[in-house]
């Protein structure tokens, strides 16, 4: 496989939506004549066309994606479920609200402002992010603190690659992320559910870990608005709320930042919030989770420590009491 350097990918190489739709209908026909299994990239036959997925960038399919071995053999959660069952309170607190309301979000132009303890603070444009970093596909398990889970084929690149460009200093012990604050685009912010904007943070070594990615899409296309367009964090061994959406600010600091859920209910949501079946949420068990897309009569699955990524990340927390520092 030809692996292109990031700079080789021009935005013109990203297929636009019309072409993609045409290709889809071709693929559907191909499936009908029995070629489907060989040609279709994902088992999405029969999945309904996304109804309210919108993206100001024009709904594009990534043309050149570096495939990775992450998540090989995992069964993907259907696209329809990944894009209609979302916690994104900026667009409403019901799971289906974001897919119905997130069309008001304008994802172009979009920049991320990077500040704090670093040599080269500055602003980076989403187009430069899309072309300047090799976009790879990574299939990760995603475990929500509400005891449900998905398997999502994210598109993105290691957060560490972006962080290095801004040259954090030795004082940079933590990284904070902020979601866009704009009541017009995000009508859910009119209600004082949180102290907006939504804020999340990681310890520097967690942020630099190769599993931690900034994600620009899923299922091979640019990120749907309801999933956190145009760019979001994905930390697969932590509860989903750590994976903050629609990021506009990144800040390096020496002290542990205040993060949204942790600030609101510290006994329920820790700063670390690593997936851990041994540490229950005070109001519900974390021993099992329901895998979205398995239907009404499916059984729950046993939740694994660090969401099954212990081999890669457990060493980050050696010497810590995970029951106290949850």
């Amino acid at each position, binding site marked *: 496989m030809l692996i292109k350097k990031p700079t080789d990918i021009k935005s013109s190489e990203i297929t636009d939506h019309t072409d993609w739709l045409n290709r889809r209908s071709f693929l559907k026909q191909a499936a009908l004549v029995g070629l489907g299994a060989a040609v279709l990239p994902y088992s999405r036959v029969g999945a309904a066309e996304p109804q309210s997925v919108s993206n100001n960038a024009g709904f594009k399919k990534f043309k050149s994606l570096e495939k990775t071995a992450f998540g090989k053999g995992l069964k993907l959660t259907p696209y329809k479920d990944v894009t209609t069952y979302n916690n994104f309170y900026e667009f409403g*607190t019901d799971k289906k609200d974001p897919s119905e309301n997130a069309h008001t979000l304008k994802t172009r132009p979009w920049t991320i402002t990077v500040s704090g303890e670093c040599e080269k603070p500055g602003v980076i444009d989403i187009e430069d992010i899309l072309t300047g970093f090799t976009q790879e596909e990574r299939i990760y398990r995603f475990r929500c603190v509400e005891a449900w889970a998905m398997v999502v084929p994210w598109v993105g690149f290691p957060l560490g690659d972006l962080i290095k460009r801004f040259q954090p200093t030795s004082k940079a012990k933590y990284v904070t992320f902020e979601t866009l604050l704009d009541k017009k685009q995000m009508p859910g912010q009119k209600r004082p559910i949180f102290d907006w904007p939504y804020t999340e943070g990681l310890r520097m070594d967690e942020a630099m870990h190769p599993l931690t990615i900034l994600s620009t899409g899923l299922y091979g296309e640019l990120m749907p608005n309801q999933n956190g367009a145009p760019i979001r964090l994905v930390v697969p061994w932590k509860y989903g709320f750590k994976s903050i959406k629609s990021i506009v600010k990144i800040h390096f600091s020496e002290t542990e930042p205040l993060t949204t859920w942790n600030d609101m209910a510290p006994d329920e949501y820790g700063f670390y919030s690593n997936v851990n079946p041994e540490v229950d949420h005070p109001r519900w068990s974390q021993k099992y989770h329901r895998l979205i897309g398995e239907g009404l009569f499916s*059984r*729950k699955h046993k939740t694994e420590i660090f969401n099954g990524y212990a081999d890669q990340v457990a060493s980050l927390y050696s010497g810590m009491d995970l029951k106290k520092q949850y």
Partner: protein
Amino acid sequence: MIWQAFNDELGANPVEKLTHETGLWGLNFLLITLALTPVKRITGMLWLVQLRRMLGLYAFFYACLHLLVYTWLDQYFLWEEIVEDIIKRPYITLGFSAWLILLPLALTSNRLSIRKLGKKWKNLHKLVYLASVLVIVHFIWLVKADYAEPLIYLFILLLLLVSRLPIIARQRLPGR
């Protein structure tokens, strides 16, 4: 709901959807049942009281469905987890207690029980007020951040309970 279940229209998390829907309808019927007496007093439609038993039993029916969805579809009879939930999770403790309270009320909703229990029957059935408070707190305690919906229900329940205070219930209504 059954139609939706068979047609895969319950969304991405059908078990959660069924749990929430059965719970909400149980609560709706409970509040409708409690609303009959004050509404009768205001409108003078005496026949409303005849619906009380039927609607109360609807509420209990949905409470049973709610419990069934939880034990069967949600926990899949993981008794260890269920017992732990009832003991350790306050909102489940309250929900289960509310069901336990409603159970004898449903069982004694027949004419024979009314006749046999006499005055005790009326006192027994006053437990519905306690059950309804437990149900609302059960709802409030399971919410993560957005309390709007359970608080609206709480407000309605408080109105219905206040309307029963002797000082208000004895008021003569204008025009009657």
